[in-house]
C-alpha cells in the first residue's frame, strides 16, 4: 500500500529526500556533532523553522484543501507550547526546590514541595499558590497527553458549535479570530494562572538534562522537529490522496452539493479542524522549548494571519507549498528584521529594512493574492510544465464561492 502510494506521489519522496539531506547537512555542520560551522543559535532558528513548516502543513490542510480559513491555528500552536511549558517549568523548579529543601533537618512534606514550587514559579507575578490548571504539571506523560488533548478538545467544541450553526466563509474566519483574541486576552490576565504577560520562560533548560550542553540539545530538538515534519507530511499526503482528500476538496468547492450527495459535511470539517489543531499543538510543543519562552503575545491574532500569509505565498492546496512558504517567509523575515539586510540608499532617503520589511511583506501579499494565487508552488508547476485547464476565465461552478479557474489545479 505505502509503496504504491509513494510511487504514485513522487513529490513525497523528493520532499523526504530533501528533508533528510538538510537534516544530515545541518548535523554535520553543527557545533555539537560536526564542524561547528553553524552556531547553536542558528540551529535553533532552523529547528523552529521546521516547526513553523509543520503548523503551516496543518493550515494548508484546513484552508488550502478544505477551504476553511481559520485565523486561530496559531492559538492551538501556542496552547501546545503552554502545555509542554507547564511541565518544563514545574519539573525544573521541582529540582531546584528539592535540592534547597534537602538541606533542612526534617524531610520535606509534599505540601512544602508544592508550595515551594508555586512560590518559585508565581513569586514573579506576585502570587504563591499553584492554580488548579497546574494539576497535571508534575507528570510528563499526562502533560504530553494534554498537549494534544487541550487544543483538540477546544477545537472540537469550537468547531462543533460553529459548523453546527453553519457558520462559514468569512464569518468563520472572523469568529476564529475573535476566539483567538479572547484566548490571548484570557492568558494575558494574571488571574488565569499561566503567569500573564510574563508567560512561561526558561523552557530551553530541559529538566534532568542540565548536564547536556545547549549545542547538543538544539540538535536533538532539530532532529525531533524534522522527524515530526517528515512523518506528518507523509501522513497528510496519504490522507489527501485518497477518498477523504477528494471529499474535503469537494467541500471546499461546493459545500451544498457534497451535503446533497449524502456526506456529513460537518463531520468532515469537524474532524479536519480538530486534527489540524492537534498537529499545530504538536508543532508548538516542539517549537517553544527551542524558543525558550512563551507568552500570550505569541497567540495574538496577527500570528495566525502570518500563518495564512506563509501558506498563501508558498502555494495553497499543495503540501510542499505550505512548507516552502513557511520556511521562505519566516527565514526571510528574520533576515530582514535582524538588521542583516543591507539598507538601500536612495540619495534622498535610506530604506532601512527594519522599518520597511513589513510594508514589503504586506504589499507582496496583496500582489500574490491578486496575481499569483498559486504562490511559489506555481513556479514548480512551471518547471514541471503543468498547466491548468483553459476555461477562458469562467468559474468552475455557478456559485460565488466556487473555485475560480486560476485556483483549479489538481
Amino acid at each position, binding site marked *: 500500500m505505502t509503496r504504491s502510494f509513494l510511487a504514485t506521489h513522487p513529490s513525497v519522496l523528493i520532499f523526504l529526500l*530533501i528533508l533528510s539531506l*538538510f537534516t544530515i547537512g545541518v548535523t554535520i*555542520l553543527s557545533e555539537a556533532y560536526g564542524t561547528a*560551522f*553553524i*552556531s*547553536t*543559535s*542558528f540551529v*535553533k*532558528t*532552523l529547528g523552529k523553522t521546521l516547526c513553523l513548516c509543520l503548523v503551516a502543513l496543518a493550515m494548508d490542510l484546513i484552508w488550502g484543501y478544505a477551504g476553511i480559513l481559520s485565523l486561530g491555528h496559531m492559538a492551538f500552536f501556542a496552547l501546545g507550547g503552554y502545555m509542554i511549558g507547564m511541565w518544563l517549568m514545574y519539573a525544573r*523548579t521541582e529540582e*531546584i526546590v528539592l535540592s*534547597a529543601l534537602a*538541606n*533542612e533537618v526534617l524531610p520535606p512534606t509534599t505540601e512544602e514541595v508544592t508550595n515551594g514550587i508555586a*512560590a*518559585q*514559579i508565581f*513569586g*514573579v*507575578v*506576585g502570587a*504563591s499558590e499553584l492554580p488548579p490548571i497546574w494539576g497535571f504539571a508534575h507528570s510528563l506523560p499526562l502533560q504530553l497527553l494534554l498537549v494534544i488533548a487541550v487544543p483538540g478538545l477546544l477545537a472540537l467544541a469550537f468547531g462543533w458549535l460553529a459548523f453546527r450553526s453553519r457558520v462559514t466563509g468569512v464569518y468563520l474566519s472572523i469568529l476564529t479570530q475573535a476566539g483567538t483574541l479572547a484566548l490571548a*486576552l484570557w492568558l*494575558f*490576565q*494574571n488571574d488565569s494562572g499561566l*503567569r*500573564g*504577560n*510574563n*508567560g512561561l*520562560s*526558561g523552557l*530551553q*533548560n530541559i529538566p534532568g538534562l542540565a548536564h547536556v550542553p*545547549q549545542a547538543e540539545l538544539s540538535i536533538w530538538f532539530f532532529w525531533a522537529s524534522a522527524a515530526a515534519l517528515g512523518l506528518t507530511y507523509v501522513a497528510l499526503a496519504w490522507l489527501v490522496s485518497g477518498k477523504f482528500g477528494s471529499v474535503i476538496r469537494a467541500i471546499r468547492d461546493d459545500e451544498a452539493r457534497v451535503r446533497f450527495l449524502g456526506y456529513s459535511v460537518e463531520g468532515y470539517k469537524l474532524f479536519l479542524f480538530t486534527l489540524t489543531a492537534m498537529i499545530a499543538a504538536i508543532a508548538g510543543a516542539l517549537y517553544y522549548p527551542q*524558543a*525558550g*519562552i*512563551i*507568552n500570550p*503575545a*505569541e497567540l495574538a491574532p496577527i500570528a495566525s494571519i502570518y500563518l495564512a500569509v506563509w501558506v498563501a505565498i508558498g502555494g495553497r492546496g499543495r503540501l*510542499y507549498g505550505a512548507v*516552502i512558504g513557511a*520556511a*521562505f517567509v519566516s*527565514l*526571510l523575515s528574520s*533576515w530582514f*528584521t*535582524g*538588521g*542583516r539586510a543591507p539598507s538601500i540608499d536612495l540619495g534622498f532617503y535610506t530604506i532601512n529594512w*527594519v*522599518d520597511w520589511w513589513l510594508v514589503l511583506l504586506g504589499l507582496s501579499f496583496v500582489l500574490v493574492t491578486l496575481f499569483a494565487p498559486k504562490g*511559489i508552488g506555481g513556479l514548480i508547476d512551471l518547471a514541471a510544465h503543468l498547466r491548468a485547464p483553459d476555461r477562458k476565465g469562467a468559474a468552475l461552478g455557478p456559485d460565488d464561492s466556487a473555485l475560480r479557474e486560476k485556483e483549479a489545479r489538481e
Partner: protein
Amino acid sequence: MTKTTGLWLAGAFALSASMAAAQDETIKVGVLHSLSGTMAISETTLKDTMLMLIEEQNAKGGLLGKQIEAVVVDPASDWPLFAEKARELLTVSNVDVMFGCWTSVSRKSVLPVIEELNGLLFYPVQYEGEESSRNVFYTGAAPNQQAIPATDYFLEELGVEKFALLGTDYVYPRTTNNILESYLMSKGIPKEDIFVNYTPFGHSDWSKIVADVVALGADGKKVGVISTINGDANIGFYKELAAAGISADDIPVVAFSVGEEELSGLDTSNLVGHLAAWNYFQSADTPANAEFIAKWKAFAGENRVTNDPMEAHVIGFNMWVQAVEKAGTTDVDAVREAMYGLEVPNLTGGVAKMLPNHHLTKPVLIGEIRADGQFDIVSQTEPVAGDAWTDFLPESAVLEADWQNLDCGMYNTQTKTCVQIKSNY
C-alpha cells in the same frame, strides 16, 4: 526548497564572517535594545545613549588601550527573540558585556541564556525586584528605590489615607502593587482602603475607573492614586482625569512609568501638580546633568529629552569601564568581582555605589508635572540602597542576595542556605 538552502547558506556565511571578526583587537559591547516593534520608541533612545557613551570613551582613548566596538542587534520587541539575540551576541559576536532590555519579560527571556553562557548584562530600567542574577547588574530602581519612597511621600507629605493602585496587567505592576499592599497594611492602612485595578495594555476607556476612584472619597478619607499604568494607556487615563476635573489637590496621582518622553504625547496643562517618582529628572539642577543634557542634545538632536533609564546606562557604563580598568581584563568573573563597591557620580548629585546584591544606591526624586511637560522636583532623598528581595512580602523578607561574600542571589537568612544559584525565570 532550493531557495531555503541558499538562504541558510547565506546566513551561515554571515555568521562565520562575524566569528572571524571576533578575533580582532577591540572590546565588544553588545547593545540589546528593540529598534522596531512596540518598545522601539523607548529603547531606541537607550541604544543612542550607549552609542554616545562608547563614542565618548573611544575619544578618551578607549579602554585598556583598545577601542570599544558597539554590536547593535534588534530583538524587535519580540520576547523569544531577545533570548536568541543574546545567544548570538555571546556565542557569535563574542561580546564582553551587554547593555539592554527594557521590559521585565525581555529580561526574564535573556536570563537563562546569560546564566548558561556566563555573560554580563546591565539592565537600566526600574523593575519589580525579587531577583538577583549573578550575571546581571540592575542599574534601574528596585521597588524600595521608587515605589516605597513615593508611597511614604503620599502618606507623610500628602496625608493620603486611601489608595487606588491602578496598573497595567503585567508583572511589574502586579508585583509592585503586591509589595505596596503589604507595605501599606504594615503602615496601618486597612485592606478595604486599598483599591486595586488592572487594565490591558493600551487601554483607552477610563471613565468607569476614574469614577470608581472618585467614589472612593465617599468615606471622608483623602484618596491618592499610585499608577503603574504603562505607556500609551496613560494618555487616555490622564485625559479622563482632566475631563472629570480632578486636580492634584483633590486626588494626587503618582506614576512610576511616566517620564519626560511619555508626557510629550499629551497636553499637560490639566495635569499640573500630579506626580512621578524616579531617580532622575531632566530638570535636576546640577552641573553634571547640564553637561550631560548638552552632550545628548549635540549627539541626538536639540528637541530630545533625557530620562531616568538613560541615566542608569550612564552610571552602568561608567561603572563597567572602571571595573574593567580595575580588573585589567574584560573577563566576566573578574569584572564582576571588581564591580562591588565601585562608586560613580550620579547626574543628580551624590554617588551611586554598586552593592553586592548587584543593585545600586540611588537617590529617590519626586517631581510634580509642570505645564511644559517637565517636572518640578519637590523631594529628593539621600541615596537609598537597592533591595533585591523586598522586606514587605513574607516570603521575600527572609531572602538576601550577596554575590560578594555568600556567592548567592537567593540566600535564606533563616535557614542559612542558598536557595538557588540560578535565577527564577
